[in-house]
């Protein structure tokens, strides 16, 4: 019987580059920027790292394939480097590889690094890319906002919500994230916005306006992990450990079988239940202190609050508008500004989220630091489309808590 990952692996150090339109930087510059912070935080030498995982999703836009770009950028000493891609869950997937390597005893210290340089396309939004020979011949010509926008139509229909109420809650989500991003120097967008800004922004994919969509940016984030014992031997106190790492991947049921109604993420519901079990959490609304979710679009965040079993089904609009997820609320969501303000350099996003939990739990989050140090935090990534996707969940917490 598998016992799960809880408390088997500790985070030794983390780093995160400034996210944004890094016109003057190559992907390897961003990798080095994140890594130098992490290695200093870990207090080890580079050659103590025994294995590494690199996450990039749209590699044809920057570094190309394989683990080589990471090995070359950091001049890693001929250690195993694995490149992973799993839609927007790629970053968390790299973290999972490194954590599992340490948990298995295959490596004492492992590195997970995510990077994406998306701003060399010449246009806004995610780069156009192929979907595979057959898929390209029958999938609709859909964009990311267009596929996620459909959640709104189905959610409204299922829960009999007025379009304007849903739109207002979605707008609140974006305003809240910009309020938070305003206190984060590493964010791409640090400006505050108003409800009017959001509600009056140009339509991208009905009902998502410009301010319902996260930005696209360049960035990198990384984690160095080890066992709690080694962390302690290296002089770490107040150890932050991994409580759960779960992944759920659509098998075509939502896309092809009429049991799915289009209003929720089937994968998130499954992955979050498994993660709570692995982490020993029985009531997430009471036990989790901080959430970083995949707010690629405001409606994704709203629906995800229910799929994580924090808001009751059909109750997210109320919780959002009540300020439950605001920085001063019961469970802040995107206290760092989220994808909304960081943009979404795909391979980096998952670890950027874990980085924020890691800072908050150590009281190192500066102007946006929660007064009471969070005990349990959750990160969530959702890659692909609502009807066919990859969902990753991590739960991070104080070691032994």
């Amino acid at each position: 019987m598998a016992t799960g990952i809880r408390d088997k692996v500790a985070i030794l150090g983390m780093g995160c580059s400034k996210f944004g339109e890094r016109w003057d930087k190559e992907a390897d510059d961003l990798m080095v920027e994140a890594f130098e912070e992490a290695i200093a935080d870990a207090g080890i030498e580079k050659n103590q790292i025994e294995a590494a995982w690199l996450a990039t999703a749209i590699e044809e836009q920057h570094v190309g394939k394989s683990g080589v770009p990471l090995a070359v950028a950091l001049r890693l000493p001929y250690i195993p480097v694995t490149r992973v891609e799993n839609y927007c869950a790629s970053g968390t997937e790299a973290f999972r590889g490194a954590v599992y390597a340490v948990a298995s005893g295959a490596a004492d210290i492992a590195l997970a690094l995510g990077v994406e340089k998306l701003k060399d396309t010449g246009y806004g939004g995610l780069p156009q890319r192929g979907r595979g020979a057959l898929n390209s011949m029958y999938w609709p010509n859909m964009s990311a906002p267009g596929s996620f926008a459909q959640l709104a139509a189905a959610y409204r229909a299922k829960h009999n919500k007025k379009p304007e109420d849903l739109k207002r809650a979605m707008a609140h989500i974006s305003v809240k994230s910009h309020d938070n991003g305003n206190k984060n120097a590493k964010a791409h967008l640090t400006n505050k916005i108003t409800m009017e800004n959001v509600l009056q922004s140009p339509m991208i994919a009905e009902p998502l306006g410009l301010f319902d969509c996260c930005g696209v940016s360049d960035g990198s984030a990384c984690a160095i992990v080890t066992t709690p014992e080694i962390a302690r031997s290296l002089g770490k106190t107040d150890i932050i450990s991994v409580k759960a790492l779960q992944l759920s991947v659509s098998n075509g049921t939502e896309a092809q079988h009429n049991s799915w109604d289009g209003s929720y993420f089937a994968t998130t519901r499954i992955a979050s239940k498994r993660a709570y079990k692995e982490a020993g959490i029985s009531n997430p609304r009471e036990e989790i202190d901080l959430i970083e979710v995949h707010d690629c679009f405001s409606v994704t965040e709203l629906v995800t609050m229910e799929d994580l079993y924090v808001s009751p089904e059909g109750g997210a609009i109320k919780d959002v508008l009540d300020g439950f997820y605001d920085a001063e609320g019961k469970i802040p969501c995107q206290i760092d500004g989220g994808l909304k303000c960081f943009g979404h350099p795909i391979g980096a996003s998952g670890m950027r989220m874990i980085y924020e939990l890691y800072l908050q739990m150590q009281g190192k989050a500066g102007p946006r630091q929660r007064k009471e140090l969070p005990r349990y935090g959750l990160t969530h990534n959702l890659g692909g489309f609502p009807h066919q996707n990859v969902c990753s969940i991590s739960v991070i917490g104080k070691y032994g808590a």
Partner: protein
Amino acid sequence: MTEKNDVGILAFGAYLPRLRLSRKAVAEANAWFNPGLKGLAKGERTICNWDEDSVTMAVEAARDCLTGYDRGKLASVAFASTTLPFEDRLNAGIIVEALNLKPNVNAQDLTASQRAATSGLITALQMARGGAGPVLMIGSEKRRTRTASPLELQTGDGAAALLVGAGPVVAKFIASASRTVDFVDHFRGEGFEFDYTWEERWIRDEGYNKIVPAALADLFKSTDVKPADIAHFAMPCVLARVAAGIAKKAGMPDAVVRDNLHTVCGETGAAHPLVMLVDALEKAKPGDKILVVGFGQGCDVLLFEATDNLAKLTPRLGVKGHLARRKEETNYNKYLSFNDLVSIERGMRADVDKATPLSSLYRNRRMLTGFIGGECKKCGTLQFPKSNVCVNPNCNAFHTQEDHPFADTPAKVQSYTADRLTYSPDPPHYYGMVVFEQGGRTMIDFTDADGETVDVAAPMRMMFRIKEYDSNRGFTRYYWKAAPAGKPAQAKA
């Protein structure tokens, strides 16, 4: 009364695109250059949506024609058009695949003349008399015309289809006559985009007024039917009063000259004799004699008699139904852009290579062209596309899928969006999840959609359309799209 061995038209169908371009909008945009166009600026013409061509219209007309008919009985498909998307690839073959016909049907393209469809129809009727058939005879046309040309205002896009054979015919074939004369009123040479047209007065005097009467005289010599017996004279001709003059000279009453549909549709090229014939059949009473003319380097004339089987035909949209399925378009620039008659800034998102992997397309042709999915033999679940493992989570059986056609199954919208980010020649791009009535679903492009017609639970029907056009290689790739099938299910908020 009809006899078992009567030969003629067993069924008919048509397709006219939903968009109607206001001729006033065309004339107003171009009057600075040619004020004379204002004289042609009455009514509206049918125009294809950006994702339609002669093949897609032919498929829709054929589906309309085959409503309620067992497609397995078809022996032959003939496709007439002077605007074929492929010069070397059997265009009728695409239609055969889209209609899921048996591969043992004979299929051919008939082209290079405005009377290609009537000549094909005569051949089909002769085949049926010889015991062959049934033949599906389709005419479809999307003529490419120069900006500010009279042709731009005179033509329309459209298609019609006739099921020709022996049996319970709705119109019995009586006689035909043909003339072949190398009369070049217009032409389009190899590699040329547009027609070159000669003076209308000459076309009228030396062309229509000499060639058609001679063919009519031959026809009436071969039958007991007299010109005075004709109830419907269907002769496409954009020149004013020419058809009426020919009818009068031949001894037909004025009232039998059928409207050439100019004000509501325009002349649909090689398809137009069939379109006008279908229009006549929709209005004909049993016993009515119908005379059809196809003109082009000579002419074909065909005589039919409507039968009481007309009333027994399964309802279909036909010309009337498609004329009612209408959306006015007053934006001439949009028409120019749809037809690549103006170089519009499409943005970098339109830059992607649209090459088609031909081996993959071939391997998956039943799915992509025929819209065939699967039905699980074990649990009965329908799914699209078909796969090795049943999608039903309570079944998941391996290798149990049998072919199941989805093209004619009604569907409803589960979720949708109107996307302004993704590239579309007609933004915003509508698409979403549609759920089929008997099971199965698919995330699919919508077409002919707008804010008034699309909502959650809105009824949709599947239509055969262009998925991508690869302008680097000249390849048109087709697939199916969901189009609104009725009124919105709920009010738009």
